[in-house]
């Protein structure tokens, strides 16, 4: 009797070929993008998405072509942060879906771009699906958002990760050439505790860590530029030293960041000469220094 290996193909479905074809499509898309960087944090609420948007703004301000993949499927925020109107029609052709265009011509693909209204949640048709299958669905969704978006030629694609460190396995699998991840924390002991786990996981997985950013490091008064503490906590530099990863930025909190974010404008581009704007620019310098050929 014939064995599995004796039978060519799988009888007509060609599942392996279909998976290979998916990979080739993804590869064709990613090959046009020079550098891919993930922005992540084990902890939610540390200003990661706002940081991603402003790093993208800084890169675009320097003349780079920038895109953002909003990998936070269930809590997408990039359209809001970059002033993209939910009413914009999707342009879809055989090649793919055109990304939304945000402030400074930054290209964005986000679940928010695909939903019919700003308050629509991401829900799948299988409302009785188990968590395992929802997770599988999300992996597929992420692949499609990457592979089926008409990104065109980009210098940088920033991937805004969801809170937690579980999705990095997925991204590493989809983008093996990932330049690395930027970890974001706030000074609080709790945030550092959780982010340290994320750093350890990336180290164990062999994912390069470009560096650690301390966000909301202090409070800057927009009127007098006086700086004060916002959180109590251990020195974030110590965490980077302990984990042997570069410390690439200490970003003070400027309340105008949240105001600008809510109005769909980027803080960096209006206030790049502010203390916080300069700190973001310095962090971007450090990110670029860590990437060969930039």
């Amino acid at each position, binding site marked *: 009797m014939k064995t599995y290996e004796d039978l060519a193909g799988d009888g007509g479905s060609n599942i392996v070929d279909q998976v290979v074809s998916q990979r080739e499509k993804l590869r064709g898309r990613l090959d046009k993008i020079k550098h891919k960087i993930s922005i992540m944090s084990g902890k939610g609420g540390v200003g990661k998405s706002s940081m991603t948007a402003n790093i993208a703004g800084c890169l675009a301000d320097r003349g780079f072509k920038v895109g953002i993949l909003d990998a936070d499927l269930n809590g997408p925020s990039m359209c809001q942060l970059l002033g993209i109107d939910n009413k914009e029609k*999707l342009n879809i052709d055989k090649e793919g879906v055109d990304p939304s265009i945000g402030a400074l011509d930054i290209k964005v693909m986000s679940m928010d771009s695909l939903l*019919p209204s700003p308050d629509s949640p991401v829900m799948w048709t*299988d409302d009785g699906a188990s968590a395992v299958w929802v997770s599988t669905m999300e992996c597929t969704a992420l692949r*499609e958002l990457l592979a089926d978006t008409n990104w065109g030629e980009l210098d940088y694609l920033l991937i805004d990760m969801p809170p937690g460190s579980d999705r990095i396995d997925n991204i590493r699998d989809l983008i093996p050439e990932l330049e690395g991840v930027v970890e974001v924390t706030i000074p609080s002991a709790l945030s550092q505790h959780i982010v340290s786990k994320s750093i350890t996981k990336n180290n164990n997985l062999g994912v390069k860590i470009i560096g650690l950013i301390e966000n909301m490091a202090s409070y800057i008064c927009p009127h007098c530029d006086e700086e004060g503490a916002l959180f109590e906590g251990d020195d974030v530099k110590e965490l980077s030293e302990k984990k042997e990863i570069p410390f690439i930025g200490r970003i003070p909190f400027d309340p105008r960041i949240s105001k600008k974010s809510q109005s769909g404008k980027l803080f960096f581009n209006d206030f790049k000469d502010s203390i916080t704007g300069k700190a973001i620019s310095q962090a971007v310098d450090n990110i670029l220094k860590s990437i060969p050929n930039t």
Partner: protein
Amino acid sequence: MKFLCIPCDEQMQTQTDGIMPAESKNISLKFKCPKCDHSIAMLTNKFETEFVSKIGVEMGGKSEVGSGPMSVVGTQLAEGKEELKNAAPTESDLEWTDEAKARIQKVPFFVRNMAKKTVINYALEKGITTIDAKLMDEVREKVGM
């Protein structure tokens, strides 16, 4: 997964007229031996069906429908923009009523191609040029789709 006809020692071929009960999410995929024509059905439960549907592959081979951009997200999102939902290309020269289109869209995309072919073949056999909900009920009744 491969299927072997033991008496003939031949690989069984996937049949494109798959059977898809719309509500239970259990599917039956038919395989036939090219030598003796013996047919078997592979029956999957809801969980196995869900798994295949979410990895973005299609049973019976890739179709034009499944090749469209964001075909999984577009069909699996409970609420998505109209442009996304309508992006999947339609096929065949037959006319589909809106209700029939809506019903075929409810079939998971990875077996939708098979389900479509079953309906189309049935319509062509009968010389019918418009596919409506009544015809789809008839197909389900006759072939178990």
